[in-house]
């Protein structure tokens, strides 16, 4: 990882964590859909096979940090680690390793909006499913939880796409 990309990661981290704590933590639409924008940071981590244990540790720390602000114990940490672990498999499926792409970050500009949408919808879905079911601690409220998962996934996906597009626009200038 070059120095520039490390700085980029730090910028990403600060941007998305700030958005999470200051804005998206308080957004709840129709008592159903909530937004977890910090997942974007996990999605955009660089792709490095040999660095996977480090990436997992980072995602655990980020999840735990968010957990503290939600007053929940370990649910965000669990979901975040799960996302980063399954992200590796998904990227292998979607982007068979080939020179440039293998090292790149899975951003909107690198993937194109179709592949990026598929990629982020699947991973956000995994994250939210784990999160809401762990939080409920039961499958008694199955349909209530599924509704929350679906609408929250759509909301988070929309905000991720929005922030990525804005970043893209700023870069193009």
């Amino acid at each position, binding site marked *: 990882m070059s120095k520039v990309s490390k700085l980029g990661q730090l910028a990403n981290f600060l941007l998305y964590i700030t958005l999470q*704590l*200051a804005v998206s933590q*308080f957004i*709840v639409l129709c*008592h*159903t859909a*909530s937004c977890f924008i910090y997942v974007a940071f996990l999605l955009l981590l660089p792709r490095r096979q040999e660095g*996977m*244990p480090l990436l*997992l*540790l980072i995602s*655990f720390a980020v*999840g735990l940090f968010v*957990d*503290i*602000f*939600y*007053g*929940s*114990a*370990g*649910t965000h*940490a*669990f979901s975040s*680690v*799960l996302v980063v*672990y399954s992200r*590796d498999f998904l990227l292998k499926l979607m982007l068979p390793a080939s020179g440039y792409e293998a090292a790149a970050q899975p951003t909107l500009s690198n993937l194109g909006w179709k592949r990026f949408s598929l990629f982020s919808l699947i991973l956000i879905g995994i994250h939210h499913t784990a999160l*809401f079911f*762990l*939080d*409920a*601690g039961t499958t*008694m*409220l199955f349909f*209530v939880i599924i509704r*929350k998962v679906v609408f929250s996934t759509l909301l988070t996906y929309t905000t991720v796409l929005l922030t990525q597009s804005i970043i893209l626009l700023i870069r193009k200038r």
Partner: protein
Amino acid sequence: MLRALMKRLLYFLHAHKCFVVFVLLEFISVFLIVNDKFYKASASYAVGSIQNFISAVKNYPILKEENAKLLHENAMLRDKLLQVAEPIVQLDITAPHHLVPAQVINNSIVGTKNYLTLNKGAMHGVEPGMGVVSTAGIVGRVKAVSDHFATVTSLLHTAMQVSAKISNSKVLGTVQWPGSNPLRAQMLYVPRHVPVEPGDTVVTSGYNATFSAGVLIGHIKQAKLRKESPFYDIELHLSTDFSTLQHVYVVKNDWKLEQVDLEQHTKAFYE
């Protein structure tokens, strides 16, 4: 033999270190979830300060509105005070309940186990187990405190139960949140022989010494009576809107310890 085994084990761990780290981290997470002492971290000073700052920024635009609300409440209370001024003089004024005003600096309604954070803590006399109310009605029970902050188990927590009564018929029941809609709760254990009407007011019973008696919980939306059930299925419309909660009061009951002590003493004696 043993060394060879160790060597193979180390090779295995190295070859699958990704998976090993993954399993280890998920295991720690599950441990944290099951062991619910971790929530105390959110009552810590550092986290509380950040939340305090965020809520101050967030609430700035609606300060005027809040001010008006509080003024209105003040006026209403003064009005009530004037009405009862005479009788109060003859009353014994050593009532056991005191209120500590506090601000909600963190709140969630989207989960099934929701907590709030308040900007008052042990330094202001807040202790775990105290009740929390707002002008509109019941809010929750204090779960943990640090010096400056307190976390509160919201009524919107599926494990939270509140002893309640229907104010007309004085009949006793238990209010619990079923976990889906933050505006609705259930009232359990109301026996079928009492008449229950939609629109009836439900208040706290005051039996468990956490809340004083008569704190508003909500109104009955519908009461169903199934053929085989000994109890009603009652749905409540909660009077507190948890999504816009800001100013709350922590209820200190000076006699709580005495009451709980005596009750436990009695229990121990007869069991």
